């Protein structure tokens, strides 16, 4: 069964001037125990999309979708408060800049304990307090923090960013989520720390069968860990498939350009040759092209591209392009 099945989710931003379609009909299907990567440049709407899955956005944003199923349950039929309740019960999220996501004036220990479910403890309040503390320590062990006593009594600013992210993961684990959304969890971290965080996520994925949606702008860096990848560009769905499909046979011109712009992946590169790139930059929100938003930068673009392409499915390899590279392989 699909854990999460979202079809054509759109997000509009209402400003004082006009309405901007920030995310344009993006679909995402997640299976249980899947490690999924969501890739896109900054500004591609991937973070907003993830937050919309949580219904965490404030009044400026309007979310609409054709389908939003969570474990087979149609959430769109429920009032928004109910949706939030169901989602926050089973889905946890960690963000970039973990330090800013922890309350600066409260100890780490308290913030972990706060996330624990009260109904799991029994006895008098002092017994419960002890159980809570033990549970918090256990969570810290799970994310690989061994000096739990120091950590529990610390305030966020006393820890490093990487440690804070581990704490965030511990907090996320407190409610035993079925899905963990990680929004650029390793941004601004050293490479060794990045690897450790990814390894931690991957082991949680394998040991606990917890699905993970890893959001990143670095396709290469996360491809080692992911089962499947979804690529977004400027708020539109681009391509989705297994990591192998995406890397070996990218159908979409954008994905293709993304891969060939990376020196490690384009193997037969002579020394000092230029890397292939697409001309131009990602469009700003105020000036989005109509139809396929890659249009102005796309090498394959033709007249037909001013109408937005539909998503087509080729044996689980989804692509949204009128003139894809499918026949090249």
């Amino acid at each position: 069964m699909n854990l999460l099945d979202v079809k054509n989710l759109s997000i509009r931003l209402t400003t004082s001037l006009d309405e901007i379609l920030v995310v344009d009909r993006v679909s995402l299907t997640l299976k249980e125990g899947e490690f999924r990567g969501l890739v896109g440049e900054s500004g591609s709407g991937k973070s907003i999309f993830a937050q919309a899955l949580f219904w965490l956005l404030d009044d400026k944003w309007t979310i609409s979708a054709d389908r939003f199923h969570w474990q087979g349950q149609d959430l769109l039929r429920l009032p928004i408060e109910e949706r939030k309740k169901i989602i926050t019960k089973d889905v946890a999220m960690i963000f970039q800049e973990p330090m800013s996501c922890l309350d600066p004036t409260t100890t780490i220990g308290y913030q972990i304990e706060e996330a624990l479910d009260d109904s799991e403890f029994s006895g008098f309040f002092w017994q419960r307090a002890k159980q809570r503390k033990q549970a918090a320590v256990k969570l810290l062990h799970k994310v690989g923090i061994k000096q739990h006593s120091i950590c529990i009594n610390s305030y966020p600013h006393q820890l490093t960013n990487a440690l804070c992210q581990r704490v965030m993961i511990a907090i996320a684990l407190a409610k035993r989520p079925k899905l963990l959304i990680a929004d650029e969890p390793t941004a601004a971290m050293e490479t060794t720390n990045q690897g450790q965080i990814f390894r931690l996520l991957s082991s949680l994925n394998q040991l606990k069968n917890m699905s993970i949606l890893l959001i990143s702008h670095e396709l290469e860096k996360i491809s080692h860990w992911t089962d499947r990848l979804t690529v977004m560009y400027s708020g539109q769905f681009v391509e989705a498939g297994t990591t192998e499909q995406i890397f070996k046979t990218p159908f979409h011109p954008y994905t293709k350009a993304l891969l060939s712009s990376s020196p490690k992946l384009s193997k037969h590169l002579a020394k000092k040759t230029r890397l292939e790139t697409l001309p131009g930059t990602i469009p700003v929100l105020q000036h989005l092209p109509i139809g396929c938003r890659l249009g102005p930068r796309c090498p394959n673009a033709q007249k037909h591209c001013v109408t937005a392409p539909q998503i087509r499915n080729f044996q689980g390899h989804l692509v949204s392009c009128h003139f894809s590279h499918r026949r090249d392989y």
Partner: protein
Amino acid sequence: MLYFTLRRLYLLSFTLLMLSIVSFSLSYLFPGDIIVNLSGITNPTLEQRIELNALYKMDDSVFHQYFAYIKQVVNGNLGISMFNNAPIVDEMNTYLPATIELCVTALFIATIFGVTLGFIAAIFHNKWIDKIILAFAMIGYSIPAFWLALILIVIFSILLSWFPSSGQINLLFDVKEVTSFIFIDIWFSDIDDKWLAFQDALRHIFLPAITVAVTPMTIFIRLSRTSMLNVLDSNYIKAARAKGLSNVKIIYHHGIRNALVQIIRQMGMHFAHLVSVVMIAEVVFDWQGIGSWLINSIFQRDYTAIQGGLIAMATFTFLINIFADILYVTLNPIERYKRHGA
């Protein structure tokens, strides 16, 4: 923490130094004889003059004169009042406590109501309740204190006769002045109806305290509203929402403290504002405090009193500021703890 306190004390001593220089130079800047301005003795006899010259080292350089002056100040000699020949220090002992009482009560009212209203406005951001509170803050901020005082007197003392319009306590209560803090004096006095006297004193302080509290309260409303809005917009609140915590819990456990930490310092700064309003309110309500005393002294060209009052008020304001700073540090763990070797 120790380092912080030491730094504050250093700042305090430096400010006091500047203050004393200003107040010393006033005796040169005020018209009239310097020695008269310093001592307050308006028509000194020849002997007195010789004595004072020796005391204030008038024959030495300005530098020596300054230190002689400081020595006198430290010994508690601020001269005598030119107006009624009473030692300034004694005058202050009688008047300053009443002002402190009024200030503290007003500050208390302003903080409790201002911060609560500000937080409520932020929590219901852009709802009607937010708009009402903001409008109230705007009106309160625009009303001049003296006018508000008069209106309050008209309504509550003259029309409704709920609260007395002047004084600190009904003269029927024969409370002996010991500390000059009226509430403390009542507590330690041996009159029979302490409770009644207490109530009476409360009723007397009510209108002046409200008058003084309104302006700072409106400032606090806006400060705490902005600060709470900032906090509610921060990443950790978003993360707490993702944790699935209820709104009440988020505000109670994470909102209030963080918002308070941000405003406490600024509240200390606005205390100076409160002090200036207190001076006006004291005159209107005939409150026997240092503010009305100081204003009277200005009218009477009582230079020694002006100097003394200046020192007293400034020191008091500064002490409150330091207190707010220390409170800020105790509440804020970022200032309290160093990072672990990261």
